[in-house]
């Protein structure tokens, strides 16, 4: 299986946990990001995700490399779903195994932060009476916008 993938299929977290498990792994953290019904008092009907697929998979793998460099003996798998997602659907799964637990938490949280910074994936929120592409404002501009 691909350890770093963009998928249109429903995400099964167990697949990713099992992919990072091995005899020296004492701790596994699996993070799942889910579509939330309410954000800042606005009700979401569904979300639509889009990605620049080949670059996104490359960037996910880069995040895996960064983690293995910062925390040796970890193993990482990440998948992000694209297409239309409903409330509670899993948008992203991050699995990290480590001999010890502290690093499994730390590295997993690092992965989600990096995904939100560098991976070309976009989310559109669709409400009862409108829709909008969401940008998290984290990205540093290298060209003038406005």
């Amino acid at each position, binding site marked *: 299986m691909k350890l770093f993938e963009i998928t249109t299929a429903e995400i099964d977290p167990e697949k990713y946990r099992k992919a990072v498990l091995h005899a020296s792994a004492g701790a596994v953290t699996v993070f799942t990001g889910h579509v939330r019904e309410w954000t800042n008092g606005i009700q979401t009907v569904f979300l639509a995700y889009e990605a*620049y697929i080949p*670059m*996104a998979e*490359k960037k996910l793998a880069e995040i895996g490399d960064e983690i293995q460099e910062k925390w040796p003996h970890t193993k990482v798998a990440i998948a992000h779903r694209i297409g239309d997602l409903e409330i509670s659907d899993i948008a992203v799964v991050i699995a990290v195994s480590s001999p010890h637990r502290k690093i499994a938490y730390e590295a997993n949280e690092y992965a*989600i932060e990096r995904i939100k910074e560098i991976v070309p994936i*976009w989310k559109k929120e669709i409400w009862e009476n409108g829709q909008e*592409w969401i*940008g998290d404002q984290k990205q540093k501009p290298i060209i003038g916008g406005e």
Partner: protein
Amino acid sequence: MITLLYFAGLKEKTGLEKEQIQFSGHQVKELVEFVQNKYENFSNSAVLVAVNEEYALPEDVLQVGDTVAFIPPVSGG
């Protein structure tokens, strides 16, 4: 020729997923200026540029066959 890719809000603004233009030998920032003139309200916020699936700098020079993606602020996760 170089290939231009538009995503998310930029795809809606240009009405295109992809187009091909003659632009090799020019810098990334010149290309950005070009598309900003070509498409009204192209970017309301910061846009990054990727060349051949890697983030590029404004001064990078485009080559024949390059694929250039305009990347609005990402919002995965």
